[in-house]
């Protein structure tokens, strides 16, 4: 990677991490997502600032062009994050469903259409 590319990526990584920390500070981002992104950022940051660590990895995987290894890693991380989001989305969808069900039952209860709930 050229020094200029290195500088550019390092700057992007640093700015991203600062932005993430700012969101956490303002309580607009939860700790678990912050952890995810900061971990991704730090790993990519290490790859960019110490590109030599990419050489043995590239050799081992069989990639002759190190920046490609960097992009492979970046892509893999983004993929992981997206899988994590899908998982969270599924959970949220399930919870929204439960809330709707609770609401339907409560509505009937409030209108007096149901016998008072069993354990009273």
């Amino acid at each position, binding site marked *: 990677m050229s020094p200029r590319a290195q500088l550019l990526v390092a700057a992007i990584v640093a700015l991203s991490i600062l932005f993430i*920390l*700012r969101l*956490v*500070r303002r*309580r607009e981002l*939860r*700790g*678990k997502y*912050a*952890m995810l992104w*900061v971990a991704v950022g730090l790993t990519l940051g290490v790859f960019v600032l110490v590109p030599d660590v990419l050489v043995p990895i590239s050799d081992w995987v069989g990639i002759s062009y190190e920046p490609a290894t960097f992009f492979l890693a970046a892509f893999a991380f983004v993929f992981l994050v997206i899988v994590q989001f899908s998982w969270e989305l599924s959970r949220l969808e399930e*919870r929204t469903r*439960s*809330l709707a*069900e*609770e609401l339907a039952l409560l509505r009937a209860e409030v209108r007096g259409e149901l016998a008072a709930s069993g*354990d*009273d």
Partner: protein
Amino acid sequence: MSSTLLIIPAFNEAEALPAVLADLDDLDLDHDVVVVDDGSTDGTAAVARAGGAVVLELPFNLGIGGALRTGFLYAVRQGYEQAVQFDGDGQHDPDEIAGLLAALDDGADMAVGSRFAGTTHSYEIGRVRARAMGVLRGAVKGLSGQSFSDTSSGFRAFRRPVLEFFSRSYPSEYMESVEALVLASLNGFRITEIPVHMRGREGGEPSNRRWRLVYHYMRLLLVLTASASLRGRAVPSDPPTQNQS
């Protein structure tokens, strides 16, 4: 209705809860009890109702932070002046509630029952855990400028301004009590620690959960670090009201 509310967050505590509620009933204190059932599957809500408590049933498990926030919201909406968080598993001694409330009368906005403050050494914890808690204590001290001996206590009393603040902003992730201390402190609330005696619960952390614990510590340190720059700044929230006493 009295002016003091006891908030008991409960997740599958059907076994221990009846005795706890009975103990609280015998207390010489004018109070109401609300049990927040955090999505239990063992009939906790029915047991709590049978014990005479008001029960808020969450439709699914929100974790201790979510359950507490529900309790705080209830306290605020119902107009309570102060509230005490109390465990449903029999870990806390009802007789020590008076000490926490006395601290509020003495001008504290929030009183935390500490296992380690003062001379009461009746609670043993593991060494790794103790060291990890030491690191957190250091971070909390750096941020709040106040040293706390027990950052994970779930035996706490709150005055109404704190209840209002927490009903909007109580942290919901694991080990929320640490974040809560820092938040309350950064927002100018006065926090006092009161030594209390706690009955220890058996069993340490199983090894397969240790990595999770490590993850949560890292996360917490990250959040605390990010909060660091809040210090000495105006934070968008209601200022604590001055104490009248």
